[in-house]
Structure formats: C-alpha cells, structure tokens
C-alpha cells in the first residue's frame, strides 16, 4: 500500500492482465452480481455492482482523456489536472476534500495514463452518496486556485525527479517513450519541466473545460451498496451535466520499434536491460494469445526467461516480461537487472529464448499453467472493490465492458498453436527497441 496518490499516479504500465474476468463462477453471486451499465442522457456512463465482501465502497470517476490527447504545448496537462482536482471546488476550499475523505476513514487516489485519467475514493459504504457528490463536484467545478497551482507545480517537478531515482519505473517509462515516439503514446505523461513551469491557470482551465465533459465521464461504483440508490444519486449529480465531447484525434499507426536503441548512463552500479516489441492493442484479435505468451515467457519464477536466462545461464539477477495494452497500441517488454559486463550476452540469451518459442511453440502444460495464472490474477483483483472497479473503468474507457466480461472464456479457447503463431508474428528478432542503463564511471 503506497499511501500517496502522487506516488502511484502515473500508472502508464497497465497490463492487459488487469482486464481478466472469467466466467463469473458461483462466487460472483456470493460476493455480488454482474455489473450494471447505464448511460444517462447527458452521456455519463454509470457502471455499478453490488459487492458485499466488506462494508466499503469504491467510487471512481474515469475520464476519456490522457497523455495521448495533449498537443505539443499541452504536455503534462492531463497529469496536472490529476493533481489539481482534489485541491478544491467553488464550495470546497483547499484541503477540505482530503479532510472529508480521511475524516470518515476513507482513502483517495488518482491516476493518469495515455488513454484515461481517473480519480478514486474508497469509503465506508454508508458514505457512498457523499462520495458521488464529491466526484461530481470535482468533475466540473474545480477552481484551480492560483496559490495551489503554484505549489502543485513544484510537486510535479519533484515527481519528475523522483521517478528518475527509481530505475525500474524510469526504465519502463523510457522504453515506452522510445518505442512509440513520435506518436502521442511516446509523449511524456508528466510533461516537460518547461511546460510545467510556464503553465497558467487559464490554460489548465481551458483544457479542463474542453475534456471534462459528460460524454467523457464514466462513474464506477462497486461495493456494499444498492445499485438502485446509486443510480438515483448519480442521476441528480452526474446525470445533469451539459457540454459535448471534442473529437478525439485519430491515432497514428504504432511505429515499428525495430532498431531503436538508447544507452543511458546512470548512477547505479548495476545495469538494466530493457527490450520492447510492438504487440496487439486491446481491440485486436491476438491480444489473448499474446497475453498467455507473455506469462509463459516471463511472468513467474518458472517462466522461460527466468529459467533460461537467470537460473541456468546466470546472466541476470532479475528478469521479467510484461504486456501493456493501450486502446490503439500495445507492447511487450522484457526487463532485467544485471552486471554491465553481461548486457550483450543477456540480450542474446533473451533472443534465443524468443527464437525457441517461435520454432518449438509452447507446450500444453505451459498453456494450462498460463490460464491458471490468468484466472488467479483476476481472482486476486476482485479481493478488493477498488480492484474490480478499476477493471471495469479501464475496460469501459479503452475497450468495452462486454469484452471484458468475456475475456477469460476467450482466453480459454486459445491454442498452443495460436501462441506460437503470435510469437512469430510479433517477436521478430530484429523488431525490438532497446534501452539500457549503463553504470557511470565504470562501476561493476
């Protein structure tokens, strides 16, 4: 549990795994039911589900705007809004929102990604109505107090620095930027220090008014609540907004990352290797096969990369593969921590494992194990109401709720042969971008 929304906020790495929902077993009936989806006349979507595993409720408002919607002079504005929305509205002075949430024992958090931005609270279930009123208020009435903005600007500049101090996060960020540049998915979600320093209240307010419109809003409510009551509260708050959504710019085709390389000198004594391939977006057919393939390749201590590159060859201290899906793009990354002298050997060893999977495919045992992993990821997700709510919010903003609910059944239909085909289609031996962190001053 990381206590600050700001530490978590740039959840740019969100795997398709977050989307798994199996055929809801007997269990879902015990804990709740299927989610209900309703669209209000103003365009706001409400997704709600009763879930009584504990007496809390997750309330999340998702906006269909994020890093990919930013013009060159707007870089970082989605993220700045994320920081500013809980600061205050016309009727809620700075600081009062946090005091209200925490004063009833609740928690808040917010995240910015390329495709969406969302604001989350978890409250005792009997405060659900207050929570919805609060989210509706910040959705349209944020005031962007000048003093607050000036302070938060500093905080965001600090955040940029802090991210650089964490090599794992920084590597993921650099990989994504290198792989997708110059398309919007390659833009820095945190913006640039120049834009952040020069940002005015008016610019921010303009961006907010343009994008924070009802057709861009999704409210997700999961918890120990009565869906009918939630709908009534939502109707008199989110249901009465006005404004129409701007056209979202069409996304350019995802570039081929092949041959893109960056070596970055870093203060750490250990080196980092990152390799990234283009992979299917959420809407593409091959998403399921690629997801299972990624599990087999590098998701667990028994995965191929762990066994081959770490345990047998002893070339790395840690290695893993991850699959990130976006609405119009996706990538699979392999990242490792290792001694600098092993950088080349480890890269070749990763490629050898990739080649082996392309030539020999995957075994039936591996396929079944990957399916169990997928099922388990979902099961652990729904232990908390906010985990389930996030699955729904992400599905609604980048995919569809219906697809989400059918994801696991579809995964079950994937054959080992399809996975081998996906490996050959996506993981070309020269089709990857590479980012390495190299110790400064010849450290070992």
């Amino acid at each position, binding site marked *: 549990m990381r206590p600050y929304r700001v530490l978590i906020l740039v959840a740019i790495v969100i795997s398709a795994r977050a989307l798994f929902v199996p055929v809801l077993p007997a269990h879902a009936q015990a804990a709740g039911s299927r989610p209900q989806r309703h669209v209000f006349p103003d365009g706001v979507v409400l997704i709600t589900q009763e879930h009584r595993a504990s007496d809390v409720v997750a309330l999340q408002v998702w906006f269909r705007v994020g890093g990919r919607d930013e013009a060159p002079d707007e870089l970082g504005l989605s993220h700045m809004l994320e920081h500013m929305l809980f600061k205050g509205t016309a009727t809620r002075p700075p600081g009062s929102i946090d005091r209200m949430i925490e004063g009833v*024992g609740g928690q808040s958090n917010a995240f910015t990604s390329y495709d969406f931005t969302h604001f989350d609270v978890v409250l005792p279930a009997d405060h659900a109505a207050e929570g919805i009123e609060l989210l509706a208020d910040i959705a349209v009435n944020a005031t962007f107090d000048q003093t607050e903005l000036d302070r938060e600007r500093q905080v965001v500049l600090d955040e940029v620095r802090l991210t650089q101090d964490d090599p794992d996060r920084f590597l993921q960020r650099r990989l994504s930027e290198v792989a997708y540049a110059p398309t919007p998915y390659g833009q820095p979600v945190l913006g640039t220090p120049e834009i952040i320093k020069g940002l005015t209240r008016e610019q921010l307010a303009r961006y907010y008014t343009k994008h924070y419109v009802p057709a861009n809003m999704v409210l997700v409510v999961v918890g120990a609540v009565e869906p009918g009551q939630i709908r009534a509260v939502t109707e008199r708050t989110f249901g009465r907004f006005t404004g129409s959504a701007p056209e979202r710019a069409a996304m350019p085709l995802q570039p081929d990352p092949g041959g893109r390389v960056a070596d970055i000198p870093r203060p750490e004594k250990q080196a980092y290797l990152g390799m990234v391939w283009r992979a299917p977006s959420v809407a593409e057919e091959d998403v399921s096969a690629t997801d299972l393939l990624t599990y087999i390749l590098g998701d667990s201590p028994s995965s191929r990369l762990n066994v081959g590159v770490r345990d047998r060859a002893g070339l790395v201290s840690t290695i893993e593969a991850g699959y990130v899906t976006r609405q119009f793009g996706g990538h699979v990354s392999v990242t490792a921590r290792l001694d600098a002298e092993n950088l080349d050997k480890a890269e070749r060893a990763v490629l050898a494992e990739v080649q082996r999977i392309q030539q020999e495919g995957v075994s039936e045992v591996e396929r079944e194990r990957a399916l169990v992993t997928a099922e388990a990821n979902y099961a652990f997700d729904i232990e908390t109401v906010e985990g389930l709510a996030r699955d729904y919010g992400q599905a609604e903003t980048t995919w569809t709720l219906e697809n989400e609910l059918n994801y696991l059944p579809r995964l079950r239909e994937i054959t080992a042969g399809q996975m081998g085909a996906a490996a050959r289609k996506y993981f070309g031996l020269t089709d990857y971008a590479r980012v390495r962190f190299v110790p400064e001053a010849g450290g070992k």
Partner: protein
Amino acid sequence: MRRAALLVALILILPAAARAAELPVGRERLDNGFTVLVRANPAAPVVAVSVQIKMGSRWESAANAGISNYLQAAIVKGTTRHNGGEIAETITGLGGTLSANGDTDYSEIKGTALARFWRELLGLTAELALEPAFLPDQVEGEKEFLLARIQKRQDNAATHAFDTFFAKLYGSHPYGLPTLGTRESIPRIDTAAIVAWYRRFYRPERMVLAVSGEVPAAEVMAEARRLFRPMRATGEAPNDAVPPVRPPRASRMVIAQAAQQTQIVTGDLAPRVSDRDYAPVQVLRTVLGGGLAGRLFVELRDKQALAYTVTAFFEPTRGPGSFLVYMGAAPANGRGAEQALMKELERIRTTRISDEELRRAKAYLLGTFAMDRRTNARQAWYLAFYEIVGVGHDFPARYRRAVEVVTANDVLRVARAYLAPLTTVVLEPPQKR
C-alpha cells in the same frame, strides 16, 4: 503491479483495527508447540498462507549478518523431494506465488493460490519449511543474487538512507544490521552455517502458520495438524533475551550520493506492539504523516511545496521499535525542508493537537487498517504476526478500543517521549558545478 514499493518493503505500517466485522478465526496449538490459525473468508476464490518463524537479524552479528534472510532465500530453492525449478512450476500451476524472506524479529514463508488448490499450497509450504535440502550448489547459487540485492539497496537513495538511519539509531545492536546482510558477511556464510541456523530456529514452538481464504476451515486445520505435528525440535534453542539498546544521542549525519532528491530520515526509538503506548504512538504517526490531510503532508508539501514525499513511519516489530519521518525534497530545497520538518516536530512536542485533528487521525487510522486487512495475503500476515509477537490474533478488536480512547494529551505525552533526541540522516546529491 505486484512488486511492493521500496518503502513498503522496508517499513511495516501497522495501523489499527477496524469497523469491518471480524470473521471467526480458528486457533490451535499442536502438542509440539506449533501454532495454527485459520480464517475462512468467502470474499474471493483465493487462499493465502503465512508461516512465521522467530528468527531474524536480532540474533545475528556483524560476522553473519543476513544469514536468516539467506536461509529463507535458499529454502525455496529445493527440498529433499523437489528442486527449485519444480517448486516454481508447481506453484505457478496453482495460480499462486511462494516466497520467503528474513526480517529482524521474525522471518516468513508466504504463499498464495487459487482457493481450490489450498491443500496443494499447504503441502508445498510444509515441504519447504520441514524438508529443505540446502544443497551446497543451491545455497551458493543464491549468493550472487543476494549481493546484487544489497547493491540495489545501496544504489537506491531512499533505501540507503533508511539503512544508514537504522545503523545510526541502534548503533552496534543487532537491530542496526541490515536484514539482507553486507558485502562482507554474505560471502562468509556457507551451507553448514545455514543448516546449523535452520536447526536452531526452525523449531515448532517458534513457528506459526496462518491460513486465510475461501477454504473449509475444519479441513484446513486437520491438514495442518497432519503436516506439522510430526515436527520435532533438534539442536539447541536460541537465547531470546534481547540485548539492551543504548539510548541514542541526538545526531546528524550527511552522506553524499548521486540522486535526484535529497533524502532526509529522522527519528527515535519507539514502543513495541505490546506496549501501552502503541496506540497513542500510532495516532501520533497518523496526525503527522497519515494520509493526505496529515500535518507534514499539508504543511511541507501542500502549503510550502518543500518536499515531494513526506511521511511518518512507526516500525514496532523490534523491541524497542522506531518512529521515523522520511522526506524526499528537491536538492535546492533540502536545507529549508529539513528546517521546516524540525519545526513541525518541535511543534507537536510542545503544543497539543486540536480535537478535529485527533478525530481525523483516529478515523483514518482505523479506516486504513480495515482496508489493509481486506486481502487474504494481508490477513494471513496479520494473524501470524500478532501471534508471533505475543499479542494474539484477536488483537485488532482490543487495539481499536485502545485507539478510540487516545486523548490529545496522550499524543502530546508520546510525542515528547518518542520524538527526542532525534537521530537524523541526510542523503545529499553532490553539488553540480
């Protein structure tokens, strides 16, 4: 995101009990002294186990620092029946994870799985705990990974600052040793030493198993009995008397390390879970550093924009534990941030907090505790932990009452007692020219 953030891995946040209804917990102490706790929870089709052992860096010295954690790293690498690769494959097939680590006063083997595989998970956990192989090549093979982890902790500005702080606060006491060990100690630890350490500490009366999940409680209890009852102590029991910690004097130390942020860690010794001051110190922690409405966050970040991260930690597992404040600031702000922090600590030592602050802190403390205990992995950990530190699995309910009766005067009293003298470590990036 399955990996814990660095601070979370480093610090135990142990807040208070909750409004959520407590599900019944079955507890049994087997005749060999081994304790089993089982909590059936229908929330999700998963199960989590935690085996905790009274073993850790508290019993170590500079010469063998890190041996408990080393033992734990090696224990998942093979049993007399299965090698590490087979274990890893099996657990993946259960939809779960299995890992082990060492800490100061206790060490843990923990696992998760889909609930329908609870029996397999329990069996595998017992096999690791009771039948480790400790083959020399498995043990030696871990050395390099441990050294790499030690290097990573030193490379990371925040973890390096924390480790330095604990070394300063506890001085030559074993609590000042890094639980991962050192570059000097790890190479000297061999298989024979690991085996001897295992015999000394893996004794049934020093161990607790907790299981939480969608499981049939009675069957789980019966299976745990079957698995752990044959366990017998061998070798000589360790001496559990804790050497006294020499009270620290006020000090400030500066280390230079390349980083984007200046890291400031300051704090003092603090009570343990069983102490009567535990609840008031938790309230104090929350007033200062709990949540986004906590004092330090509001004053130093929201109002003065001096720090990006600022939070208070209370680490009560040691005896004595520690209370500390951590802050990450832009290098240009470092000095001002530290001064402002000291001013806040002075203020809480001298001025009683308002009723409103007290009310928010208690609500937030109890609320976050309830939320933290919703997952089965956390439940299993809490159950075993409260048992192993001797306060019992029913501690949350008592603790909640203890938090409710804390007064502003209590907070003032513990602030005076536990926030002076301060040991401070500042990690600064070298000045760029």
